[in-house]
């Protein structure tokens, strides 16, 4: 005769929803537990992806074809110097688009001569070549950069941080600063230079006046080199020997954009940590589901008995409770993904980033929630199925 039937998918879903419909508040609170965990994970992945997308866009814009040449150390540990004609020689390398030198000037910058020379505010004074601005692809927030006409006079261009420290926001009214014992007129203020933070914290004067007033010898302390994008590595290889043919090993060449890329990499460690925290929240949510399901099975012994009497097999009962747990966690998972996307969107909007929610995070979010639900539902469902119909029916 008849064997037990297989339930239709629609009926299975309906069965799983009965308990949830009946206890809405409990359903909502339990789903919230899962939602928080999933939202945390999706938000972490989303924010990290948005940040990375932004960083890559920034890198794209800044270009990765800037190299920085500095004198290294000699074999004996003394600090080395670049030859005076290093900039000219570097410019002769074919793929080099431009090269600009800066040199350290031993002097302090102050707003007035009443301020102690010891309070430099971390501002360094650098001599800079007029083509530094174009080599760094920088822009001015106010005024003009040094040029062949102004670089022999006491004029100064301030880096972005320097201007803020000194409280000068515009060249209007020809503000002056007290630099190395003489008043210099501020002719320009730079925008921030992400690839050359040293410049942000410097006051720039011309080489001619630096040599005249402070006796520098014309040797560059830093040489910024912009190459054609395809030839960065080739240029990098020949730079030491070109900049200092006598002692190529005493030349350091770095690529400032590497630091930005490293920043993207360090974010990974933080992301992993935050993901793990989200995982802990999810685990707690899963325990919450298991807990609620065990209680639900105890409360619904009679319903289980009635269903058994109406012809439900053990398997039917088991499926009902597993599906209930799955619906519960699925509800939490979908809510969590939406919540995580909203958090990502909000954070990215505040930071002015493009919003990037990885599709993998969305799929994995719902998938992990369902997995947690299945695991959490198995034990309570097995308990429900173990009830013998006779004892379940008679429960008063």
């Amino acid at each position, binding site marked *: *005769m*008849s*064997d*037990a*039937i*297989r*339930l*239709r998918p*629609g*009926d299975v879903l*309906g*069965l799983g929803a*009965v*308990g949830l*419909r*009946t206890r809405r508040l409990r359903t909502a609170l339990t789903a919230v537990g899962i939602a928080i965990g999933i939202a945390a994970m999706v938000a972490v992945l989303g924010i990290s992806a948005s940040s990375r997308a932004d960083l890559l866009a920034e890198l794209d814009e800044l270009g990765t074809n800037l190299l920085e040449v500095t004198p290294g150390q000699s074999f004996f540990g003394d600090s080395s110097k670049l030859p005076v004609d290093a900039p000219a020689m570097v410019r002769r390398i074919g793929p080099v688009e431009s090269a600009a030198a800066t040199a350290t000037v031993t002097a302090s910058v102050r707003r007035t001569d009443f301020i102690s020379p010891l309070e430099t505010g971390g501002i360094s004074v650098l001599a800079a070549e007029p083509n530094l601005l174009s080599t760094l692809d920088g822009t001015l927030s106010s005024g003009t950069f040094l040029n062949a006409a102004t670089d022999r006079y006491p004029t100064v261009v301030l880096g972005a941080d320097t201007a803020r420290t000194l409280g000068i926001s515009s060249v209007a009214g020809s503000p002056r600063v007290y630099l190395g014992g003489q008043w210099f007129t501020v002719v320009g203020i730079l925008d921030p230079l992400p690839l050359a933070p040293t410049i942000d914290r410097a006051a720039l004067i011309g080489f001619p006046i630096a040599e005249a007033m402070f006796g520098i010898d014309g040797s560059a302390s830093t040489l910024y080199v912009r190459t054609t994008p395809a030839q960065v590595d080739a240029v990098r290889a020949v730079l030491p020997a070109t900049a200092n043919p006598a002692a190529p090993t005493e030349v350091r060449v770095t690529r400032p954009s590497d630091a930005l890329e490293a920043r993207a990499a360090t974010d990974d460690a933080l992301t992993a940590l935050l993901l793990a925290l989200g995982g802990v929240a999810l685990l707690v949510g899963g325990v919450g589901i298991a807990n609620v399901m065990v209680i639900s099975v105890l409360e619904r012994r*009679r*319903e289980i*008995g*009635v*269903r*058994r*009497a*109406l*012809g*439900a*097999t*053990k*398997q*039917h009962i088991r499926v009902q409770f597993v599906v209930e747990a799955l619906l519960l966690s699925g509800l939490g998972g979908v809510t969590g993904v939406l919540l995580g996307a909203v958090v990502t969107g909000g954070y990215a909007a505040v930071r002015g980033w493009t919003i990037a929610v990885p599709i993998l995070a969305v799929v994995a979010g719902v998938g992990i929630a369902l997995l947690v639900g299945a695991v959490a539902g198995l034990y309570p469902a097995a308990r429900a199925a173990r009830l*013998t*119909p*006779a004892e379940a*029916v*008679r429960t*008063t």
Partner: protein
Amino acid sequence: MSASLAAVPPQRLATDHAVVRLDRVGKEYPGSPPVHALVDVSLEVRAGDMVAVVGPSGSGKSTLLNLIGALDRPTTGTVEIDGRDVARLDDRALSALRAARIGFVFQQFNLVEGLTAVENVATALLYRGVPARERRARAADALERVGLAARAHHRPSELSGGEQQRVAIARAVVGDPALVLADEPTGNLDSARGAEIMEVLHALHTEGTTLLVITHDHAIAASLPGAISIRDGRVELERGPR
């Protein structure tokens, strides 16, 4: 009419159309000492019967209900429901047998809380694989049979005890089972509601439904065509339904 069936040898019982047949059934619950809930019980319910099982609490009525309802298996002897030996069926087959052949009415009504009256009735067809649309239609018909069509979309908490029991009866008969088992169907109702429920059951009997009513109330037992009285796990007295 009042021949004692217990005295009849078992082989003579296996005549026409036995819906339920118990042959020297014993049920023992493990423990120290073990409890002999039923001892050597033989009885038979035929199609169209309406029989009471009457006895005080602790007499073995519940155990008998569980065995006849295929909710449990006997320790000794054989239980046949609709000609099938319960001992030979596994959980799946036993569940299928309950789904197809037996309708239950409980003292506590036992409706599922979150479901409306019509959904509760329709649940009885769920485990028989009836499609949802047909389940609803047949459930609505069954509610009409017990005079509760107007309350079809109320939840159990919105129904009186008597109304809940009518829903439960509709649930028991919606699948046209071979046997309806009613366990103290009036036990949780006042006498007026109880009488109404008995009227509904009598009406079902008139329409041809086979009914077995478990009760401790001798007045109810006396009002039914047949009665089996049990005490201490043994059949004490039988009054035949015909």
